[in-house]
Each structure stands twice: as C-alpha cells, then as structure tokens.
C-alpha cells in the first residue's frame, strides 16, 4: 500500500467545515450509535464484577459472603440495574445488525434478514433457558 494518504490539495478559497463536537446530537440515529458504543463500558463493568466475584470465591466462604453483602447495597443494585439496561440494549441492537454482516445463501437464495435476527433471539432464549435450568433446579 502506498502509505501516503492523499488529501485534496489546499485551495484557499474552498470552505472546509469542521466537524462539531456535538455531531452525535444532530440526528437520532447518531445518538443511538453513540449509546450503543457506550454500552461496551457497562459490558466491561459487568465482566469486572464477575472477576471480583471469582476472587471472592477463591478466598473462601467468608470473603464470598462479604461480596454478596456488598452486592445488596443500593449503589451496587443501581449499577446492576443500569448495566442490565445497557447490556440489553447492546444485545438487541447487535442482533438487529447481524444480518448486515452475515449473508447466508441457501440454494442460491439469500436467507432473509428476519431469519438471521430470529435465530439470534432463539439462541438467546435457549441459552437463557439453559442458565435458568441450572440455577433453579434443586
């Protein structure tokens, strides 16, 4: 690749506009995009809490009981409520974007978008049911 990027030569009379810092507020779908990108922060927080839980588990029953107590405090409940909403938004938006990236052709015909989205939801339901089964059985 020729590493040099090619820009239009400078022409003093042409007007070049700067992109506003608030570009993402100009259009609702830009705001949605930024929100979707921000969900990754909450996914990361979720993962960090899990790691912390693992550490507590390794340190023994007392540390684990402490950890559970900590989780029941209002700041943690609030954090989890907000994170849950963001993670939900993350999952749903990506499910709906999946057909753009995944093009499946069956006997020459492209599989319709709603099938790809539906399969994502089905997999989600199936996995959630599996987790629920493991957690709820006695």
């Amino acid at each position, binding site marked *: 690749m020729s590493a040099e990027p090619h*820009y239009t030569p400078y022409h003093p009379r042409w007007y070049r506009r700067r992109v506003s810092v608030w570009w993402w507020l100009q*259009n609702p779908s*830009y705001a949605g*995009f930024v929100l979707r990108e921000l969900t990754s922060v909450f996914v990361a927080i979720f993962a960090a809490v899990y790691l912390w839980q693992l550490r507590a588990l390794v340190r023994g029953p007392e540390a684990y009981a402490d950890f559970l107590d900590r989780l029941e405090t209002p700041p943690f409940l609030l954090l989890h409520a907000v994170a849950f909403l963001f993670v939900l938004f993350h999952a749903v938006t990506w499910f709906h974007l999946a057909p753009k990236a995944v093009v499946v052709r069956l006997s020459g015909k492209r599989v319709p978008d709603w099938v790809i989205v539906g399969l994502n939801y089905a997999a989600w339901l199936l996995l959630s049911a599996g987790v629920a089964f493991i957690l709820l059985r006695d």
Partner: protein
Amino acid sequence: MQATVALTVTRYRPERESEPTFQTYEVPFRKDWVVLDALNHIKDNLDGSLSYRWSCRMGVCGSCGMKVNGIPKLTCAAFLSDDLPGPVRVEPLDYFPIIRDLVVDLTDFMRKLTKVKPWIIRKEERPLAEGEYLQTPDQLDAYKQFSMCINCMLCYSACPIYGLEPSFIGPAVIALAQRYNMDSRDQGAAERLEILSGHDGIWQCTFVGECTKVCPKHVDPAGAIQQYKLTGAAHWVKSLLLPWGTR
C-alpha cells in the same frame, strides 16, 4: 394547499464571503415538484447566480446530492410536499470542501476510488477467440446490488467517521471494491485486500449504518463493509495459521 414554499439555501461566494451564509427564496409550491425543480426555478427566475450540480433529473447520474433539512438526499427525488409547510433547508453535502454555494469538491473520493482498482482484474486474460466470460444469474446476484452505486456521495455525507477521520476510504469505495471482489470473473481480491484491510480501510468503520439508510440505490455499503470485515478477519487468521497458504 399552500401557494408557495420557502427554500433556505446555503450561499458561499468565495470572492464575497469568508464563510457560508443562508439565503431564503420563496418559490411556487407544486405537488409534483422536487427540491431540484425549486432550485431550477430560482436559477431561471429569481437569482441566476445560485450554483449547484445536476444532470439527469431521474436518480441515475448522482450529481444532485445535497442535504435537505439535514438529511443527505438526491434533490431530484426529494419532493417539496414531504417537507411542508417549510422552509426547506438546502445545504451542500457534509465533509467535502465547498467550492461555491451547493457545489462541493469530490477529488478525495475519486483518488480513493482508483486505489481499490474498481475494474475486473484477470491473472491471465483469455484470448478473444474463446468468447466471453459467462456468468449464471446466481453469480450475477452475488454482486449486482453493489454495482448499482452511482457515486452520489450521500453515504460519505452521512458517515461521521469520514468526517472525523478524513483518511477513511469510505462506504462507496468499499462497496465498489466488493462489487468486483464478488464478481466471478474477477481475480483481483488479493490486490484490493491491502487497501481494504489497511489502516484507512474497513476497520475504521464502527458501523453507524447511516450510509445504508441514505443510499438512494439500495447498495447497502454498511453491509458490504461488515461482510468484508469477516473476509479480512478470516484472511488474517489464515495468514497466522498457514503463513505460506495466503501467498
């Protein structure tokens, strides 16, 4: 039905102004008029100094792309009746330098387009006597959508990434590269890979998805980019596992 509609149009006359301003014109409202008709009315009857590009009036040439009430559109396909009661704001496409009024400079796109070699590349050209390269309807279907691009630049104007990272090769260039990559007659995918997976290629895209929404020809550049991300990632994994296999 209202008799007239106001058009607020960007004016930039570099010999007179240091930055763009707006000028409002009152034009007759007709149900069958598009924004381009209103601009032509202004040019013919109200103010001959207004500059803008247009040609075919039927969504084929891709010259008349502008922002209508903030959304990149072909003005030949944007009906005034959709924006009643007005005023209708008409601005040049975003992120390209403005030459005059509604006319922007597209050199940046033209340079990037040639980089991905948007033509059929053959390792060995077949002699003419052997006849044409045949293609089945399915093989045509694989790339036809991407071949509908008319280079109207609406997707660039809708892409905030292109605005923030001007070196990004952009939606239409990637879709047009895919148009040739997916063509059964083409053998040049490896030559395009370097540009497409390079620093200014597909990985700059964070999938805003607006390019696809504004595309008047349903090319789906966002789809082309995401699909190529899979190809690019697969190629990278292959080159890690089988360094000799990807030559």
